[in-house]
Every structure is written in C-alpha cells, then in structure tokens.
C-alpha cells in the first residue's frame, strides 16, 4: 500500500525544506516584532487619526485570511510601490506584517500588567524615557509576554506552509516537488506532516513549560 523507499531517499531535501520553514518563520517573527512596536506606538499616540490607523491595521490583519494577505503582498504591493519582490522576500514580509498585529496585541496585554507606578518611579529617579523603556519596562515585558510569543511563533511556523502557494520552497512546497518526482503523494505529505508535527509539538511543549513556570512565579 504505502511505499516509502523512494520518498525516504529524499529525506535530506525534506530536512532542508524544514530548515527553510524555520528560517522563514524566524525572520518573519523578528521583523514582525519590530513592526509590532510601531503598532504599539501608534495605538498609544496622541493623535486620534494615528490611533485609528493602528486599530484599522490590526482589525484588517485579524479579519482576513493569511493566504489573501500573501497574495496582496506578492501580487498587489509591487504594483503600488513599484518594487518587485522575489517569492522568499514577499513571503517573509507577509508573515511579518501578519504576526506584527498579533504580537502588538500580546505586548499590549503584557504592558497592562506592568504597574503605572514603575513609570512614575523611573521619572522621579530622573531617568529619561529611553532608559526607562530599555532598562525597566522592556525586560519585564518580555518576561510577561514570552509564553504567548512562543505560541505566536508556533502559529507562524504553521502559517508558513501557505507560502508554498507563491513558490517559496519550504517544507510543504518541498513535499509537492518530491511528489512530482516520486509520483507518491501520500508518502510525501505523510513525511512532511511528521516533520511539522515534531517541530510544532516541540514548540508547544516549550510554551506549556513556560506557562507553568509563569504561574509558579505569580
């Protein structure tokens, strides 16, 4: 019924695909984190228009499918700004624009758990806003927000499979390519599924461990 002999021979390619999946997700996550600080800033802006734009962005990202966002970045954005992206760059950009909205929500949640008194204390000690954020607020923010952030990374690894539709050769696309060589689709997708499961289960174990630790400290 199943014949894995040829598919298993392709294992190095599968592993390379998994490597691309992880790198693309990590790149999307890091870029997304940077953008999320912009959104966070926009949400607490003095100007109503900027606050509105921040909320609009978050609502748009949460309300539309990622596959449509990927198509927008890959097919629509080049026409708007006149720059053609190769698939890999468009993919990373789409993932980061997507995760930025969710990361901003996570960071906002983490921020509400830091007492206002800390800002006031820093101010009364004569610390400037940059020192206050870098030395006092952000370290606590990251400690509060690490479990949901790892979870968001897990979501991103899952989401990155959709990049196969714009020909980014990550794990899913690798499986499709291999299926076209071996003519054995079930085996190719079973191997890909197993690799995804190993990676994602590992990350969700980490999330669970971090969440348990956070509860103990409280």
């Amino acid at each position, binding site marked *: 019924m*199943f014949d894995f002999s040829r598919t298993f021979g392709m294992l190095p390619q599968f592993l390379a695909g998994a490597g691309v999946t992880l790198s693309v997700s990590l790149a999307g996550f890091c870029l997304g984190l940077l953008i999320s600080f912009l959104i966070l800033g926009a949400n607490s802006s003095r100007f109503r228009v900027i606050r509105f734009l921040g909320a609009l962005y978050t609502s748009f990202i949460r*309300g539309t*499918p990622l596959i449509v966002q990927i198509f927008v970045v890959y097919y*629509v954005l080049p026409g*708007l700004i006149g720059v053609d992206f190769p698939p890999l760059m468009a993919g990373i950009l789409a993932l980061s624009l997507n995760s930025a909205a969710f990361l901003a929500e996570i960071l906002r949640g983490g921020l509400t758990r830091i007492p206002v008194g800390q800002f006031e204390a820093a101010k009364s000690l004569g610390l400037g806003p940059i020192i206050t954020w870098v030395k006092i607020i952000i370290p606590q923010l990251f400690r509060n927000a690490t479990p949901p952030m790892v979870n968001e990374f897990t979501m991103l690894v899952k989401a990155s*499979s959709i990049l196969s539709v714009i020909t980014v050769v990550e794990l899913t696309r690798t499986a499709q390519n291999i299926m076209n060589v071996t003519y054995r*689709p079930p085996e190719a997708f079973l191997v890909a599924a197993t690799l995804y499961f190993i990676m994602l289960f590992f990350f969700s174990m980490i999330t669970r461990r971090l969440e348990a630790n956070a509860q103990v400290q409280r």
Partner: protein
Amino acid sequence: MSFDLAVITDNWQALAKGLVNTIWICALSLPIGLAIGTVLAFLRLWGGKGVGIVVSGYIELIRNIPFLIQVFLLFYVLPTFGVRLNPITASIVALSAYASAYFAEILRGALQSISKGQVEAGYALGLRYPFIFRKILMPQVVGYVLPAATNMTITLIKESAILSTLTVPELTYMAQNVIGRTFAPVEIFTAIALLYWGLTALLSALTRWLERHLQPHLVARGAR
C-alpha cells in the same frame, strides 16, 4: 497605476457565488465540529485513561500540523485506503475535524475551570448530576464558550480560504479564477479582502450583541 472598479462590478456574480460557498461550507462545518468537539471533551475528561490518550493524541495531531497539510493528507492519503472524497466533502471533513479539536480544548478548559465545590455543593443540596449539569455547569460553560466559539468561527472562515488549493469554488478560488480571466489582481484581491473583513467584523459585532443579551451579568462585571 489605476484602480478599475468596473472589473469588480463586471464579475460580482462570481465573487458573490464564492462568498456564498465560503459561508455555507463554514456554516455546515461549525456545528459538526462543535458536536464532535463536545463528545471529545467529555471522552477526554471522563472516558478513562486509554480513551483519554487516544483523544488527546488526535487533538495534538490536529493542532500541530498545518491546516494546508491536513487538507492534502485528506485528499491524497485517504484514496490509498479506498476512500475518495470530492473536494467539497473533503473540505467539510477537514474543517469539521479542525474545529472539533479546538472546540474540545475550549470545552475542556471551560468545564475544568468551574470549581469542583460547585458540583459538591449541588450534591449536598440533594440535586442529581443531570440537574447540576444543566442548571449549574451549562450556564457558566456558555459564558466561556461564546467568545471562544466566535474566534473559532472567524478562524474557520479564514482557514477555509486555504481550500482554494483543492479547487473548492469558495471566495479565494473564485477570485483567482476571475484574475485568470481579467488580469486584475489589485482590484479583485482588494475586493475579496474587504469581503472577508466585512464578514468577520459582522460576526464579531453579532457576538458582542449576543453576549450582552445572553450574559449581561458577565459584561456588566467587566469580566471580558
């Protein structure tokens, strides 16, 4: 660069057909997923150890494999066992299975979060379990599940866009079809992004309204 509204108005029928398909496929998968998820949650809580392991294995598999891969597995692996599903049936099976795993976790969390003392207090008052379940546990579970179920519905609508890879004629597939004919990705993708956005925003508004009317005490307390 110009935005040609005529492309959208000329092809609105194809897009409307896609939107209707997206809605009914999700509307059918949601209750199936909720029903299976409820059974799974009960099995996991009270089904004994062996059953619990099988159920949590299923839930972990669904939660830790990308939906796109699940769809491909359904479509390519099942025929090996002699089961051949057409794309629409495969979609409904995939979405229901996906939703069931998440609903099972939501319900388990809800049931576990209600303290045992409430059930014991019910027994102490001489109530029987079915009555305790109906009158004490259920009203609280609904309060937990409603917001989670909305999120799940929105997730389901968004994941359903992935079904376009199986040539299911839902909104994203219809859009790609129209673009193939008109070469107007900017207009069409903008149109369907707005349609999805409107649909999910409508659902969020609906739930907020439902919460206010079904669970006024929770909203008033600022629990959410």
